[in-house]
């Protein structure tokens, strides 16, 4: 039992903090902090700076750009990045397909994809969910049929986040419709988004943004060499990928930043003749939220310090579940601090006296309903906890 970081970890934290706050352009960090849309160019610029410094994919195998960090150091790296409002390395690249190719791809695929994936020279998107396969992902119906040296893909994916920027897609497809277990007939294919037969339809979300898309495949020809790993083993890779996705999903640093922001805004708003931050019920609410977040952060630290083998810990479901709830609670707090100002949500800069933070509060709150749905919905996490941990 030891409260303090070791001198090495303390130095590591300082190094990360200094790097993130001095090497990533302030304009990009300001946009992230203000909840503005981050452009493709900004994502790419930030990730290339990180990659140049060896900070984009530290959790990958060392030969592909990974660092020999402890789980605690990875945790510190991620938290400091979020606290500094640095756009995190694109999850589809850094946390999803990169580790899958590194673990299950062949040498040619590794050489072809991994350096470009780390540097965001290739922007990946995820082709998993389908209109009839959400939480029940294994029910997916997009098919790939072998024809000579190609796979021919037909079907539809949905909720494809930032697909509009994507160069490539990694896609779960049904390659054996006769498999006894539906999980056993699935494979993972990768192919360019500009392949003939791929079309993309943006879906507008409640916040007015276009973050997710539907992707349609009509006789898309994919070379056989673009199969990742073994045929009909795609479900194993998907589970591996989703396990990685849940690591770091607590997003404690990002929620901390939102609470600090809410406290500052609440000091500048008058309610009942005094600053809102002096309202006892507001203070109590903030105190409770901060305590829940501290409990979560400490739990995340406990999980990382106990998982030296790097395997996803079933307790990571707790982090996902509670982490998403607290992110949502923080966005809700912002809306309540903004109060009536939050109604100016879609006003143009030159047409309103309402400050930007109050205008983005409700769109952000509405957008953040997603966090308890993606990455395995919170109901899926409860199922994992009840089954895997409690044995129910």
């Amino acid at each position, binding site marked *: *039992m*030891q*409260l*303090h*970081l*070791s001198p090495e*970890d*303390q130095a590591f934290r300082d190094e990360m903090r200094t790097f993130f706050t001095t090497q990533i352009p302030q304009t990009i960090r300001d946009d992230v902090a203000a909840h503005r849309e981050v452009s493709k160019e900004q994502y790419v610029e930030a990730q290339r700076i990180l990659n140049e410094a060896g900070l984009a994919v530290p959790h990958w195998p060392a030969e592909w750009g990974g660092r020999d960090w402890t789980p*605690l150091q990875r945790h510190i790296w991620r938290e400091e990045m979020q*606290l500094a409002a640095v756009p995190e390395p694109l999850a589809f690249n850094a946390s999803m397909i990169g580790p899958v190719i590194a673990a299950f791809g062949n040498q040619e695929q590794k050489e072809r994809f991994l350096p470009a994936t780390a540097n965001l020279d290739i922007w990946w998107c995820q082709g998993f969910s389908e209109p009839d396969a959400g939480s029940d992902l294994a029910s997916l119906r997009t098919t790939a049929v072998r024809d000579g040296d190609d796979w021919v893909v037909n079907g539809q994916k949905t909720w494809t986040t930032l697909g509009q920027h994507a160069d490539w897609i990694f896609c779960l497809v049904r390659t054996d419709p006769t498999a006894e277990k539906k999980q056993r007939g699935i494979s993972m294919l990768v192919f360019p988004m500009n392949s003939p037969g791929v079309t993309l339809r943006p879906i507008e979300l409640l916040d007015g943004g276009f973050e997710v898309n539907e992707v349609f495949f009509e006789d898309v020809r994919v070379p056989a060499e673009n199969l990742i790993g073994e045929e009909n083993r795609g479900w194993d890779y998907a589970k591996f990928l989703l396990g990685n996705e849940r690591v770091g999903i607590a997003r404690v640093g990002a929620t*901390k930043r939102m*609470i*600090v922001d809410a*406290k500052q805004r609440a*000091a500048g708003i008058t309610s009942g003749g005094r600053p809102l*931050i002096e309202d*006892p019920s507001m*203070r*109590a609410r*903030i*105190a*409770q939220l*901060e*305590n*829940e*977040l*501290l*409990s*979560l*952060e*400490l*739990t995340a*630290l*406990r999980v990382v*310090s*106990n998982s030296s083998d790097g395997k996803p810990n079933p*307790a990571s479901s*707790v982090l996902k*579940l*509670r982490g998403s709830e607290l992110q949502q609670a923080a966005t809700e707090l912002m809306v309540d601090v903004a109060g009536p100002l939050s109604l100016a949500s879609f006003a143009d800069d030159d047409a309103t006296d309402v400050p930007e933070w109050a205008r983005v509060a409700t769109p952000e709150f509405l957008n953040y309903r997603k966090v308890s749905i993606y990455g395995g919905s919170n*109901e899926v*996490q*409860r*199922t994992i*906890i*009840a*089954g895997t*941990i*409690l*044995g*129910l």
Partner: protein
Amino acid sequence: MDFTFDTEQHALREAVAGLLQRAYDPEKRRAVTKEDPGFDEKTWAQLAEMGVLGLPFAEADGGMGAGHAEVALVATEIGRVLAPEPFVESVVLAGGLVSAVGTPAQRAELLGPLAEGSSLVVFAHAEPGSRWTPSATAVTATQSGDGWTLSGVKEPVPSGARADVLVVSAAVDGGTALFVVRGDAAGLTRDGYRSHDGTRVARVALEGTPAELLGEGTADRTRDVELALARASVAYAHEAVGAMETALRTTSEYLKTRKQFGVPLSRFQALTFRAADMYVSLELVRSIALWATMVVDAEDSTPEAVLAAADRARLQTSTAGRHIGKEAIQLHGGIGVTAEYSVGHYTSRLTAIDHLLGDGAWATNRLAERVDAYGTVEALPA
């Protein structure tokens, strides 16, 4: 930063767990808590033999010189089987105060016998009409010659009737001082009774009762009391975590074995999801309890940091204890409300712990006073 216990600490945990699990199952606990003093003197003596009752005291005072990490391990095992022995009440709280405030002579005189199990020392502090304040008002101290006398009522005092020695807080000169009162002192009337959690508490009436000042001088001891209560709260957080763990495990087992509509209850997602939420609550409070213990143990922690960490532990213990305690009964159904079955006793003890030294709402108010004095809550101090 390290949340794990070392080999010696694991050995201590296993020894204490072995002793307490042999001493208590739900039926033995019911039998023991039926009779005064509400705990088992033999188990108390065995804990003393093991060195547990002297854990946090300096070796010079007759203790083991261990830290709060060791205290936390013991408290967790106590909670796991709901052992009614007043470990936190006596060793951590009353002993902690003597340790912090007493003169070397007083420490040796009071802590040695406490550690040996030959003298039960408790802190008589609560007063009817006020709640969770670190100062005393209803009991007052008057100087008479070389000594002092105390008058007023302390209630409820855990194990107050059984105690051999009482450490009593009393108002003096606008502040609060601490006094040692012997169980056989004149003008001391103690009425013990049973509380809902099976422990004994007492009304302690003092009428010109002779008392010895604890420590040197009559400087205000409010801060010392506040800190001792904070450290005891952190120990209670661990006792509560142990209790919550058993409550959840008992509930999970029940869901697997109890059948209704021809199937085990674990087939009903409405129930298993609630058990999953209990697990989330448990893991969160476990984390903050361990962290608070590390804050208490860290040599460079300021008193403010210890008080804040204790408030954070109190708040999470209250939230989680209420959640898990109530759900444990509900998921069992009617059997959970009976005294014959174990799980409801866990809820009862969690409710007692919540209200002994300051509940979640009380801790929230204290934390809320400072929310605009900092940006983020720092889990790991530099």
